[in-house]
Structure formats: structure tokens, C-alpha cells
């Protein structure tokens, strides 16, 4: 039962880089869900592209400070003007807080100007969609007298700090409510000194009505393995291809399809040739959701042998479609798939273990396979549906 929407009229400001594209279902669903629950939503983005302003909520974009010198100067002047005349109190409060944090006057002023678009609006919550987006904006919420929330999604918690040392140093000292995707992420965030009660785990959700097999598609005779992932190193596809080579050596009749595109295409193609598995592997590139569904429908086993993973929607979708899922133990994956119950979890970076597990799963009898599938489908439908997620976010802002 959804909480009574009439009791709430809070405004949630969500900060993202861009307006969520059609494929970015998480934010689209979340915003829709919040609106259905009676929240007003304002979206703050770095820039807008054509058509973005049709997005079904208020969108406020930052001015461009990196274009030609003249244009930037004009934007700086405008922002300064607005800061002084439109919302002087919040601007001064923000500037003071920045100075209190030990920033130089120059940097404090710079942050006041580039964040002018965030200081404009009166809102109840300021929610940063990714950890890195809160950088140099740690004091905005306090300046506009809003509560602050930050979502960590995996890459931003585990990888960004390796590139930008100390990037969350200021953030972790502020009063913030955190949203993470898995209990593993919560544990890791707690290790940074964050209080447990300030970290809320809300796993991703999928459209379980769309991702369900109608059971009419005939599966191929040979074993079909599939992965849906960006071609990024963190997805562990090179290790997966090594396991594929081992499977080939054990004379199993199979084919492996990788759906997705990305920067590591050359690396993975090269590996495919060097490991001599080009006849067993297909790269389809990026496909629309309906096509992805067709591939899942005609496949038997889903692999997600990631090196780093916040939670992973694709694995939820594969489970919902009734595939046998074998995943690595990277961060949130072992909560996504429960080992031996809804699929199998294999230690990461060990292709021999992955190949062994695939063979074991292939050898299971039909009843054993069915049992795992049924539990997985049931669990995803019950625990990772959009209504569940909407309710969790409702509580997140009202707790």
C-alpha cells in the first residue's frame, strides 16, 4: 500500500549531469514515482540538449562557463548579477560556508558563481544523483536551507576517488543522507566514518512487467551464453573471454553473445582473436530494449563476471527473464544473485573458476535448473520492482 500522497508537498531537487536519456530508466522511473507520490521535482543539470526541456519536470541548467571567452565572461556577469540581486542571502551564506571550510576567497567566489543555478530555488531536498556531482557543492544544501542527499552508484564510490584523491573529504564531514545500491556499499561507506542510520540501501528496480518471458520463444539447441554490458574494463569481459576459451577447450557446444558498446571494443576483439574464440563469440553492439529482451529469451545462461559493480540492473533483468545467472562477487553482485539459490557467485578475476561453474550449471538436471529459475524470478518480481523502489524513496525523504 502506497503512503498517502496528499500529506506531502515537498520539493526534491535532483542534480544530474544531463537530463536522463530514454535508456537511463533508473532516474526516469524515480522521478515519475516521486511525482506520483505527490512530490514536486526539479532537475538541475550541467547543460541541456535539444528536446530536453520537454522532460516532464522543471529543468534548470547551469550556464556554460567553458565556451568562448566572451560568452563565458557574459555568463559570469549574469550569474554575479543574479547572485547579488536575486538571491543575495543564500549567495552570501554559501560564500561564508565555503570560507569556513578553508577555501580561498577566489575559489569560494568561483564556486558561488558556477553554482548560481543551484542556489536559486527554494527546495526541501537537494539530492545529488552521483557522488562526484556533489564536489564543490557540499555547502549548497545548507545555504538554501534544504536537506542534502547523495546517491552512490558504484563507479563513483569505488573508482572516482582513485583518480581524484580526497574528492569526498569535505562531503563526508557534512550532514548528508546517503543512498546506496547494496549492503556491501553501505559497509564500505561506513568504513569512511559515515553513521549507519544515514545510509539507506535502495537497490535498483526493473520493469518486471516488461522483463518477463512469455515462454513462446524456442531456445537454441546449443548452449547460448549472454552478457549485456558496456564494453568497459570494470565489466570483466576479458576474464570472461578467457573462461570462454577454456569452455571451447572442453568441447562444449555453445555460443556467447555480448550486447553493448564501449571504449574497450578493440581490446575485446583482439582478445577474442588471440584466444581463438572468434567462432564462439558475437559482439552485437548496443541494442534497443526489445532486442535485448529477444536475445535474453533465446539464451540459457547469463554471465556477469564484473570486476567492479554497484548492483547491476542487467542481472536483475536476466533473472526476471528466467535465465540462469552466473556472476562474480564484485561488490553488490552477491546481493543481486544469491549463491546457489537464485544463481551462482564466482570469485572474480579467476576465469578457470568461471568456466568450471558454467560447466557445472550446464550439467544440472532440468528440475534443478527450474528450481533456481523459479526462486530467482519470484525474488526479482517481489523485491526489485518499481513500486517497491518508489515506496523506498518515499520513505527516504520522509523518514
Amino acid at each position: 500500500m502506497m503512503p498517502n500522497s496528499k500529506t506531502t508537498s515537498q520539493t526534491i531537487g535532483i542534480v544530474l549531469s544531463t537530463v536522463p536519456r530514454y535508456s537511463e530508466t533508473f532516474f526516469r522511473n524515480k522521478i515519475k514515482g516521486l511525482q506520483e507520490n505527490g512530490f514536486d521535482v526539479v532537475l538541475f543539470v550541467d547543460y541541456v540538449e535539444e528536446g530536453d526541456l520537454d522532460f516532464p519536470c522543471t529543468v534548470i541548467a547551469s550556464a556554460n562557463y567553458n565556451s568562448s571567452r566572451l560568452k563565458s565572461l557574459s555568463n559570469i556577469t549574469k550569474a554575479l548579477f543574479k547572485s547579488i540581486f536575486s538571491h543575495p542571502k543564500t549567495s552570501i551564506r554559501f560564500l561564508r560556508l565555503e570560507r569556513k571550510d578553508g577555501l580561498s576567497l577566489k575559489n569560494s567566489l568561483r564556486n558561488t558563481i558556477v553554482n548560481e543555478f543551484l542556489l536559486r530555488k527554494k527546495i526541501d531536498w537537494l539530492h545529488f544523483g552521483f557522488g562526484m556531482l556533489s564536489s564543490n557543492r557540499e555547502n549548497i544544501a545548507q545555504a538554501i536551507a534544504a536537506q542534502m542527499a547523495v546517491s552512490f552508484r558504484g563507479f563513483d564510490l569505488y573508482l572516482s576517488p582513485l583518480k581524484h584523491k580526497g574528492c569526498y573529504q569535505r562531503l563526508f564531514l557534512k550532514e548528508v543522507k546517503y543512498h546506496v545500491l547494496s549492503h556491501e556499499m553501505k559497509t564500505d561507506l561506513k568504513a569512511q566514518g559515515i553513521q549507519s542510520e544515514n545510509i539507506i540501501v535502495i537497490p535498483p528496480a526493473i520493469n518486471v512487467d516488461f522483463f518477463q518471458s512469455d515462454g513462446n520463444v524456442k531456445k537454441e539447441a546449443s548452449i547460448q551464453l549472454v552478457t549485456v554490458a558496456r564494453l568497459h574494463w570494470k565489466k570483466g569481459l576479458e576474464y570472461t573471454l578467457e573462461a570462454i576459451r577454456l569452455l571451447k577447450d572442453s568441447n562444449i557446444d555453445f555460443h556467447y553473445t555480448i550486447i553493448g558498446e564501449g571504449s574497450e571494443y578493440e581490446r575485446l576483439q583482439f582478445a577474442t582473436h588471440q584466444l581463438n574464440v572468434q567462432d564462439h563469440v558475437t559482439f552485437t553492439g548496443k541494442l534497443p530494449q526489445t532486442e535485448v529482451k529477444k536475445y535474453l529469451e533465446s539464451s540459457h545462461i547469463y554471465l556477469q563476471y564484473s570486476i567492479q559493480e554497484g548492483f547491476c540492473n542487467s542481472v536483475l533483468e536476466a533473472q526476471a527473464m528466467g535465465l540462469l545467472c552466473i556472476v562474480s562477487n564484485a561488490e553488490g553482485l552477491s546481493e543481486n544473485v544469491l549463491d546457489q539459490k537464485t544463481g551462482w557467485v564466482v570469485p572474480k578475476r579467476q576465469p578457470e573458476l568461471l568456466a568450471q561453474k558454467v560447466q557445472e550449471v550446464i550439467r544440472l538436471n532440468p528440475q534443478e535448473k527450474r528450481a533456481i529459475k523459479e526462486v530467482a524470478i519470484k525474488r526479482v518480481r517481489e523485491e526489485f520492482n518499481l513500486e517497491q523502489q518508489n515506496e523506498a524513496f518515499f520513505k527516504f525523504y520522509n523518514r
Partner: protein
Amino acid sequence: MGHRLKVAIFSGVIPSSTFIERLINGLALSDDIEVQMFGMLQSKTQYGKQIKVFGYRNNKWSKLILLLKYTVLLTLFKRKAKNKLDQLLKSENRLTLLNRLKFYPVLWHQPHIFHLQWAKGLKDWIWVRDFDMKLVLSLRGTQINQSPVADKELANDYKSLFPHVDAFHSVSKDIAEQAQKYAAKKENIKVIYSGIEPMTLQKSQKKESNVLKIISVGRPHWVKGYTYALDACKLLKDKSFNFEYTIIGASKNIELAYQIQDLGLQDCVKLFDTMPFEKVQQAICNSDLFLLPSLNEGLANVVLESMMHKTLVLTTDCGGMSEVVSESINGFIVPIRDSKAMSEKILEISILSEAERKKLTENAFTTVREQHNTKQMINGMLQLYKELHDAK
């Protein structure tokens, strides 16, 4: 020969990378050769008389002056040739200002040999053959044995263009074989090994007891196989083996940084930024073992340098590496993509006696001195140019 042979060495930029510069300076020592250089000037150069530079700086004025100069010269004195080239470029829809800037100086000076250093530029430069210049292409690593694997269009370009190249210079026998997959004629390929300058450095005396110092040098590209080296480090650490692994040139790479943290290797693996050549050489010299975990190479110069500095070498069996390193004779070889084999070999190396190490490194030194000296490289190239020119 009654006149000097004019050879253009073209890499796109002036000066080029270290090994191409070594070739240029070596060639210039020969009295029979005039070396010509075309392309964009990146920094001030100090070449001798034998080397003629016809480059432009990366600014509008420099480009404009050069373009004007050669347009006028060609119009006045080589109008026919200019018209022919213009027609050709026009028919291929690439008669752009940039192409004219690049091509006119070459057409005007018309070297006997145009030696292109990178295969990807072949499509741009194949026209020189229609103007009485011989086209030589260097076959160097990545662009032959890696890029065309995923890039089918590039592979097709190679297949259609390689048969028209007059001669190929290959840095290893392996690359020579790879190139034949793209229709390069075997009889047109000459393997000439890179030469390295002798350099004597003092090894550091301070030897920390039983910590094996392992080093790798190179950009953090996936083809360098560092992820496999780090997985091997994890296996070594699990066996409580005492080592220190340094990668120079790989700092700021998130994939490697994450892997180090994920595998708990922070105390034994260090990533460093790129360093000046001399510093790198000293670091190699001060290490116990040079590790090349690559998935693919033409023939890695850093391995040659390590052998010259009498630092033991462990390489994967990739590209042309086995043409230099022979297992247990002057170094060690393990299969590619095999962290387990790599870690086991490192353990094996760590228990070598001082006498065994000395024998291996002396052999390595001899290999490099005999097979990879600058003299054999320059003589090989001179011979290739002269034969090609005389075959007219």
C-alpha cells in the same frame, strides 16, 4: 651512383620518436644520402647539414607561408606535376588546404625514396608512386598486429594498398609474417632490427636483502598486459614472496589503481608517472628483473635496453620477443595471458645463483650488441634504399 640519394623520412611530426630520430641521425652520417624531413615542427631541432627540414609550425602564418611558397614554385616550374596531383586529389575528394600543405613540399623536392613510418598513413601517401618516388613503409607493432584485428575497414585498406608498396621495413620477423596476411609481398619485406645506442650506467650498490626488485616501463595501455602482471603479483604475495614491483609510466590509470587496491597489493606495487629517458634507464639498471607482460609487441625497445644494462628479462611470448630472448639462455619467456606461469617463473628467477644471473645477463648483453647495434640498422636501411633505387 653519380648523385646523392634523397630519402624522405616521414612520421608526420618533427622531431619524431626516439627510435626514428636514431635512424635519421644515423643515415645522415652516410655521404651518399640526403635526408629530407616533412611535416609539422613540434619543437626546435638541431640537425646537421645532411638533413634538410621542410616543415611548418602549428600556426596559421607558418602554414600559409609554406603553402604559398610551394604553390608558387610548383605553378612556375612543375605545373604539369601539380596539375596531375590536384586532379588526383580532386577525384578522391581530398583536395583540401591541409593536404596541399602536406603534399606540395614533397612533390616539389621529390625525394627518390619516401619512407613512411606508420602504416595508417599509407592511404594518404600512396600517390607518391605516381610521381617517380619509391614508397617504403615501416611495419611497427600496433598498427600491423593489433589495430586491423578489430578495425575491418583498416584491414581492407591494408589489403588493397600493401601490394603497391615498393618495399617494407619490418622491425621483426613476426611482424613481417603478420603483414603478409594483408597482402604484403614476402620478397618486398626486409627485416631490420632496431638499433640501440650503447650506454654504460653504474648499478646501485645498495642491495636490500631478499627483496626482488621487478620493473616494467610503458604507457598503461591494455596491450601492455599489466593486469596479468598484477594478478601474478597477487599469486606471489599469497606465497609470501618478498618483492617490489614498479611500473613506470602507468600512474593515474584507474583500472590498475583499482586492481592494486582490490588485490591488496598497495605495499608491494608502485605506479609512477612517465620519467625522462635517463631516469628510466637508471631505474631499469637498478632493478633485478625487467618484466614485459605484454599481449602484443613489435619488438619492445625497453627489453633491448634492459639487456644492454644487464638486468634480467622476463617477457611474454608475444610479437617478435622470441627473436631476441631465448628461454634460460639470455632471459626468460612465459606464455601470454598466463599470470600463474608468470608468477612461477619469477619465483624460479629469484633463486638463481649469482653465477647463473651473470651468465644470463652477459649473454643478453652480447645478443643486443650483435643483433641490435645502430650500425646494422643503418647499414640495413641504406642497403634497402640503394637496392630499391638501383632497381629502377
